[in-house]
């Protein structure tokens, strides 16, 4: 069946995630949807799969407009989506996952379902053990399970959202073969990705999204350069940056290993000098947050050492890091960085060194007023931080940092901000850098990384690249590294 999207629009507040997107995918093809983080790919696919309702536009199947108001409605129109984060039931078995929600009557015929599972899996070269627990499977296998389940339910339009993020090369080959087989049977496969190479390998046609709009369409085979230009815009000549003298090493990571339940980073070596700006690039969830948090002392490392300003602080509590001059500004402005329900003045009171057990309200208000003035925050000392806009919350977070910092760690400093606010934030950050603070920040905006960093470190699939000189790097080079090539 032919899938057509006409003028799909979707906004979240002031942000236009999808701004009039039109595309068409023919039956029996694999259609790529390419774009950077924040280009609008996920939103678009959520609309097609019924998770979100569009603000405007139409979806047509074989020429007939359809309304997809919910996930179950989508299934009835034979559309199914395999999400990037598996939407399955971890503690239940593969067979149980297969069966939940399926129309199988009161007591499901397990043997029949098991055979169907095995047949379908075998047909595409997957090997799934029906009795295995779902959270013991690899990400690739959980994906395979989801694909097989959707096929069993009769899906004709299959959407895959960043399917190759966490699977091995051989699993990827398997997946691609399966996708080709599905397309050959007349289905439509939407392949959503930011990885140029893979899109070129598997898709028949690709639509490139940028800032919520269709930047262009191209048949495959296609020149990589064309796709890069469509994805990122032209490589603009960079304005010359003032060279500043770097100071001694203030942040030293020696063979560091850190991990959580999902990801482990190993053998990380990095030395950051005073006044230097290091950017962390990569897809969300590739380890940048882990690194920033271990540098802040919020997570203990599994191995290796951290030195701040020459002092070994490995394994010390967070307060020691704070005392050594670390500032950490998390991505979650409200609820992580700022305390919802407290006013600006109260935050100022907490931030300043205390002289007695009693809070000097007037002093707190004065301090808050000063910070508001200096950082141009739209609000008063008695404003609840919940009422501040995103940009003002970010300004507030910066305003609450101590005057002198050794290392400033920031997650996504300008996410969701308009250009003007972003400029202003960077002016202040560069101000600090001029006073000797080292800045390490993570971002999904390649332009920001290239413009602002001295060096860039790329994270991909649990691996960390050696630092790259930002002055000499190009967008394409970064894009490829993020896509996992050459790491």
């Amino acid at each position, binding site marked *: 069946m032919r899938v057509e999207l006409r003028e799909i629009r979707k906004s979240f507040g002031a942000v236009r995630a999808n701004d009039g997107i039109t595309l068409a995918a023919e039956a029996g093809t694999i259609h790529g949807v390419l774009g950077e983080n924040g280009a609008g790919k996920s939103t678009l696919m959520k609309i097609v799969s019924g*998770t979100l309702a569009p603000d405007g536009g139409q979806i047509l199947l074989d020429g007939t407009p359809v309304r997809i108001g919910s996930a179950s409605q989508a299934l009835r129109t034979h559309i199914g989506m395999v999400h990037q984060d598996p939407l399955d039931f971890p503690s239940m078995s593969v067979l149980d996952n297969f069966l939940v*929600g399926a129309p199988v009557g*009161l007591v499901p015929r397990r043997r029949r379902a098991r055979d169907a599972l095995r047949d379908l899996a075998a047909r595409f070269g997957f090997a799934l053990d029906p009795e295995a627990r779902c959270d013991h499977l690899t990400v690739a296998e959980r994906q395979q399970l989801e694909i097989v389940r959707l096929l069993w339910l009769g899906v004709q339009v299959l959407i895959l959202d960043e399917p190759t993020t966490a699977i091995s090369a051989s699993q990827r080959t398997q997946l691609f073969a399966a996708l080709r087989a599905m397309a050959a049977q007349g289905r439509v496969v939407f392949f959503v990705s930011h990885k140029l190479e893979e899109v070129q390998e598997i898709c028949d046609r690709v639509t490139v999204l940028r800032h919520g709009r269709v930047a262009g369409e191209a048949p495959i085979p296609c020149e990589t350069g064309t796709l890069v230009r469509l994805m990122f815009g032209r490589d603009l000549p960079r304005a010359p940056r003032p060279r500043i003298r770097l100071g001694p090493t203030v942040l030293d990571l020696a063979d560091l290993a850190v991990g959580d339940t999902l990801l482990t980073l190993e053998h990380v070596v990095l030395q950051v000098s005073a006044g230097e700006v290091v950017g962390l690039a990569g897809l969300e969830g590739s380890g940048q947050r882990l690194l920033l948090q271990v540098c802040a002392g919020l997570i203990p490392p599994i191995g290796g050492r951290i030195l701040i300003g020459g002092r070994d602080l490995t394994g010390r509590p967070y307060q020691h890091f704070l005392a050594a001059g670390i500032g950490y500004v998390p991505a979650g402005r409200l609820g992580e960085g700022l305390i919802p329900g407290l006013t600006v003045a109260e935050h100022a009171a907490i931030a300043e060194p205390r002289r007695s057990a009693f809070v000097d309200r007037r002093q707190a208000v004065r301090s808050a007023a000063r910070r508001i003035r200096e950082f141009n925050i739209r609000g008063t000392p008695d404003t609840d931080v919940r009422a501040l806009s995103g940009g003002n919350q970010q300004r507030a977070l910066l305003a609450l940092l101590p005057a002198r910092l050794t290392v400033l760690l920031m997650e996504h400093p300008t996410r969701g901000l308009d250009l003007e606010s972003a400029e202003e934030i960077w002016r202040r950050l560069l101000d600090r850098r001029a006073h000797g603070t080292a800045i390490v920040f993570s971002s999904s905006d390649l332009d920001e990384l290239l413009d602002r960093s001295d060096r860039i470190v790329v994270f991909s699939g649990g691996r960390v690249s050696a630092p790259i000189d930002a002055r000499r790097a190009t967008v394409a080079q970064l894009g490829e590294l993020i896509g996992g090539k050459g790491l």
Partner: protein
Amino acid sequence: MDPVPLIAAVVAASPPVIFAVLGETLAEKSGVINLSLDGLLLLSAMTGFAAARAAGSVPAGAAAAMAVGAAAGFVVAFASLTLRQHQVATGFVLTLLCQNLAYLLGAPVAHVPGPQVSPAPVPVLAQWPLVGPVLFQQDALVYLSFVATAAVWWYLAKTAPGLVLRGVGEHPAAAAARGIAVTRTRYLYAVAGGALVGLGGAAFSLAVKPGWSRPYGIEGTGWIVLAIVIFGNWDPLRGAGGAYLFVLLQTLGTVLQSLMPRVPTQVFPTLPFPLMILALLLVALGNSERIHRALHRLPPGARRRLLRTLRALQSSPPASLGAPLEQE
């Protein structure tokens, strides 16, 4: 000391706790905690007895008790899922309210005789040595408790709606993505679970602890049931095991007291509570990441054995417990 009469006594006294544990397991599996359990057991016990006495029949009493349980489950679900109020607050108020209602409305039927469940030995099987007195010389409620445990287990493990329940509790977002009506499912099991708890209350006043009085004597059992559900890892068989263990401790308490008269009489009835805390501590230990990390330093043999013990103690709640699902 002959163990057979002891075990038979334990089995005879267990139906109320079994029903309560099963009911609360169902409700919590879907993601709704019914913190009013302690007061609810009292209220449903009193209602069951009063209704049975008024109607002259035990089934009428049981039905009334189940209705009370279902109503309480509904109130908790409504306050939590529709009105988005804090489950702990609602549950806590409700437990006090139910307890006071039980005492108030139960005053007329305190210390009066009423219908009871009569013993119902199974004809041939009751004569079996050992197994006979324990399993087949009991009353209808005990047999029902066996059936209920098996039924809940079968429902969760083998049927499609049972799968849906497990999915809703485990990962409501994934269930919603498959078109399952999450909120409606939670309402259903909060009410059904409450009804089972109500049956547990009736099992007290119509069989195990016939009649009604103030205080009734089971005050605090509801909290233990909540702890048993956690300790049992939200699994009906493990929960039933915990229930039998609890009743065994209670029964042993009376026996041990007679053997150790110098121990103060308050020690044994109170023992379940520090044991409850200990059980929860063990569960936290089993889940603790720090302990898991510390174990990595031990030699492999000891490590494997300790890990297996820890894993047995592990208890992971249905991921959505206590939180209403936010729809986009």
